[in-house]
């Protein structure tokens, strides 16, 4: 049975009248790279702040490394985190900021600091003051601060914000290395779902403070929809043709395209069928199912369910 690193049980959180979290429960096991997915204000950062005790827990229970939230100072010592924007002393250099983290954590090794700087690719900027770093470089500094004490559990809130494409790829490799070489369990949130898909091994979906669903990457790969997108001049007519030919299921994302949730159709036959029925076909593309698509459909289903309730 996998060892639970984090156990989040029936946690609710209110800010005034706003229900930020509503009875959220989930578990993160050793070795997971857990991707937390949700819209702005869904409750991702609140979850991370509750785990790190930056936000007081009022309802529910959290256990970290088997210790309950009221007494898990020791568990926090095994946890690294970068929540919201990375915080550093602006007048101090990269090295000086990391020395402070080392002293706070009782680390003596100078090599550990150099390794952390090297790990995040900030060697050329090690003597630069934090105030002079770009947004992406500050993200890297924040990551270096989080990984310096070699945490067993790493919490990263939007770590690839502000990074250029090369930086995003590097961070992806870094997280992979941390997980595979140092066996670090990771909780990560990101708006860039395609990136999250490439990194995470398990996904938790949160919507308006409610925990909607949890899937492993394997389950997601089975569930996410692949299909064919048609660009047409008249979607109603095209829909009628598909319906009468029993080509289902399909959805109409906008007034000039149709998405058929089947990827194994004969596209030649499909285009011929539409053209022969008087539909002008402007484009046809096959697509692999993506996390974005899965997320959009899941949120749509959830909202429809909420409306029916």
């Amino acid at each position: 049975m996998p060892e639970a690193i984090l156990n989040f049980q029936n946690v609710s959180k209110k800010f005034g009248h706003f229900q930020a979290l509503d009875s959220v429960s989930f578990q993160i096991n050793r070795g997971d790279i857990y991707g937390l997915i949700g819209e702005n204000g869904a409750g991702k950062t609140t979850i991370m702040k509750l785990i790190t005790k930056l936000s007081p827990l009022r309802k529910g229970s959290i256990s970290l490394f088997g210790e309950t939230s009221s007494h898990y100072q020791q568990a926090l010592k095994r946890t690294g985190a970068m929540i919201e924007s990375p915080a550093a002393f602006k007048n101090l250099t990269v090295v000086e900021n990391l020395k402070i983290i080392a002293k706070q954590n009782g680390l003596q090794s100078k090599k550990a600091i150099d390794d952390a700087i090297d790990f995040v690719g900030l060697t050329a900027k090690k003597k630069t003051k934090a105030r002079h770093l770009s947004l992406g470089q500050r993200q890297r500094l924040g990551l270096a601060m989080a990984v310096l004490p070699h945490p067993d559990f790493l919490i990263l809130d939007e770590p690839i914000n502000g990074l250029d494409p090369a930086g995003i790829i590097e961070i992806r490799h870094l997280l992979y290395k941390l997980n595979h070489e140092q066996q670090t369990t990771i909780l990560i949130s990101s708006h860039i779902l395609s990136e999250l898909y490439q990194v995470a091994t398990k996904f938790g979906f949160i919507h308006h403070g409610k925990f909607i669903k949890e899937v492993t990457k394997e389950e997601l790969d089975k569930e996410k929809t692949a299909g064919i997108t048609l660009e047409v001049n008249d979607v109603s007519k095209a829909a009628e043709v598909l319906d009468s030919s029993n080509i289902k299921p399909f959805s109409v994302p906008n007034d000039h395209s149709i998405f058929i949730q089947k990827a194994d159709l004969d596209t030649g036959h499909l285009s011929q069928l539409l053209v022969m029925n008087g539909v002008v076909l402007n484009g046809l593309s096959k697509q692999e199912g993506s996390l974005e698509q899965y997320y959009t459909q899941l949120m749509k289903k959830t909202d429809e369910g909420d409306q029916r309730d």
Partner: protein
Amino acid sequence: MTNVINQLRADAYRLTRSTGFYIMLVLVVSYNALITKTKWFGGIVGNVSEKASDHLTHTSWSMIDGVQGSTISAGLLMYVLMGLFVIIIGYEFSQQTYKNTLISGISRLQFILSKYVAMLISILMTIAVYFITTIVTSLIFGRRVGTSWIHLLSVGSSATIAITFFISIVFSMAILLLMFTNSVIISSFFIVIFPVAVMILHTRANWKWLKYIDFFSASNRISLGNMSIVEFSPYVLTCGIILIVCIGLSLLIIREKEL
């Protein structure tokens, strides 16, 4: 305990990397050298007996006079030492680095205590530098000791400890205000206004109880030898109560705060 020591080491490192800290030391040394050289005393004076004031105005200063004049002039140090408050705890909140500190596994109580102790130690060292400057400047100008060296050092140490303790009590109130308002500006303004407000009220309002928080008058009396141990006890008790209340309330606030 280890967490507190680690945090103290981190704060000490940060302080020694701060230009503001060295500017503050230069100001303290220059201010005292000027007082001792020119035999001027003043600032936020607090209550000083006429006899002592006359003596310091009309005699040629010995080292012990320098120490007493420096004590009377120590009120202004509050404005310079405010820099320590800003560097040690203010920056944590203005630059939101408290997140890193608190995630490192330190408890809220350890965090507040370590910040208070860091300020206490750095104030103590700065005030010690202040009085050492008196002695060094007096030696440079070839002044006599004016009493025995043991008595001189005893008066200097008592004044150093009293002023440090009293300033740290004002800082503990400022910590509470910082926790409550999240504003470094408001808490720094409090540090500026507190001694002046107490002194004015003490002089004008005739509220006798105010003397227990009129810290500079108390340190003047200690330095001038006008306060016995028995008379000093209520001050220690008042300060102890203020300290416990401020640390306790700060702890309650930070525990309940959304950080």
